[in-house]
């Protein structure tokens, strides 16, 4: 049996149940070591399988033209070798190829967890601004100029002291 990473003779054979499905994988001594297979605590067969599947998808997506990341120069050949991406920007570069795999791998494709505070503030602020803008347009439409003036002041205040407004 051949190693699924390179073409050497496989000596390490693994099985793991991932979401109820039995997955098998064969590796040579070197690749097993490189993937940390000797350490069952650190090793996720899912990671490895994912690496293999993804490199294929990236290869397919590239279809002749060599897709490479503008920020780090990463290519699908690199992915095949490492099973990891090169930099944060790679997620944009290879988004098409990664899409299907991420869907398979995770519960959803939309993050529902923690958001860094700085981004959360900026997001809240832009939401607040949009809502004020909408109310302003409505107030003007209804010829409620008193309210419109108030809303205009609030928007001005947001722009002038964005951090103050969003502080908690």
């Amino acid at each position, binding site marked *: 049996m051949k190693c699924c990473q390179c073409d050497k003779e496989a000596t390490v054979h693994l099985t*793991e149940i991932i979401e109820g499905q039995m997955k098998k994988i064969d590796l040579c001594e070197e690749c097993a070591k490189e993937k940390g297979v000797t350490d069952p605590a650190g090793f996720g067969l899912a990671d490895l399988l994912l690496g293999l599947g993804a490199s294929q998808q990236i290869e397919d997506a590239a279809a002749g033209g060599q897709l490479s990341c503008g920020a780090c120069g990463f290519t699908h050949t690199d992915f095949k070798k490492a099973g990891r991406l090169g930099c944060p920007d790679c997620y944009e570069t290879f988004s098409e190829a990664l899409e299907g795999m*991420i869907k398979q*791998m*995770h519960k959803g494709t939309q993050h529902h967890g*923690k958001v860094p505070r700085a981004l959360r503030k900026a997001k809240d602020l832009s939401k607040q601004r949009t809502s004020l803008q909408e109310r302003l347009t409505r107030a003007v439409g209804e010829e409620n100029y008193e309210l419109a003036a108030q809303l205009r002041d609030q928007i001005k205040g947001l722009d002038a002291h964005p951090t103050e407004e969003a502080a908690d």
Partner: protein
Amino acid sequence: MNLYDFLSTTQEMAENRGPHDHVVLSSRVRLARNLKGHPFPGRAKKSDRVEACELISAQVAGLASMRGGYVESMSSLQALDKQLLVERHYISREHAAKSAGSGLALSKDESVSIMINEEDHLRMQSILPGLQLKQVWQKIDRVDTNLEARLQFAFHDRLGYLTACPTNLGTGIRVSAMLHLPGLVLQEQINQIIQAVTKLGHAVRGLYGEGTEALGHIFQVSNQMTLGESETDIVERISKVLLQIIEHEENARQTLLKNKTTELHNYVGRAFGVLAHARIINSKETMNQISLMRMGTSMGMFPTLTLAALDELFLISQPAHLQHLLGAKHAGEERDVHRANLLRERLAGVKGLQLPK
């Protein structure tokens, strides 16, 4: 700072207990984070890695939660030090192989450890004894929040935190617990449990050894998916699963006691016999026998022994801990003799099985 001046002793470590620790050895939450605009460690040139490591180390060292902690480059640690840190579950085996350009930070009470430039720029974990998943999540959440005021993390509007491997994408969270499940193994129910838990989307693996032949009957349960669900949902879901596993393990132990009394006493009694009298013993057999004695102790069969004492024995019979204790490098066979000596010494005052009349 000398690592061994900093680290708690194995006794202090073992005496730190937590809820449900007759089954749950420890609870852990790990977060993966990366710096915006920097290549991931696996891709970065050495100079980039060193630069990122210095930048991160400085910010980590400045955290209030790291006051009095230990922050070092991996290049200043010896192979034995690294191995010992692996045995305490503070760093991964992969990280132990790292050197210049990678770093380690430990909080004063050792409940928080941060690997710098492992697979991701930051792998921050909190670990506590027993079942304390909510507590470890809150602890590491706070560390992360304080760090993000000092470092800009790579974050995508839709995909969340960006990680070197897409399996960690989104929350970057890995919630896990180390479980001691001798009852389920002896009752041959462990495979059923593993299958049920994996069906729920969690991963179960033997912590030492391969496949179902888990050494010391120790298993690790962890979440598999990191994107599409909030951190608290993931923590809650896995906590529920763990409570069920604990119940199954307790039932298995009680069923053994009720229906296979002599067999159970035979297992535990033989384990004590081996550990208290062996002259040569390897770490694999030690783990398996301590495991059985640990179960017996939790069921009141050794009134003078505590789980803490056995957990300490488990830790000090691991290769790096043993070598550190002996103060010199010993070949495998010699080490097995020293291990046996140590076990006999520690168990000298213990009488055999104490059974109700």
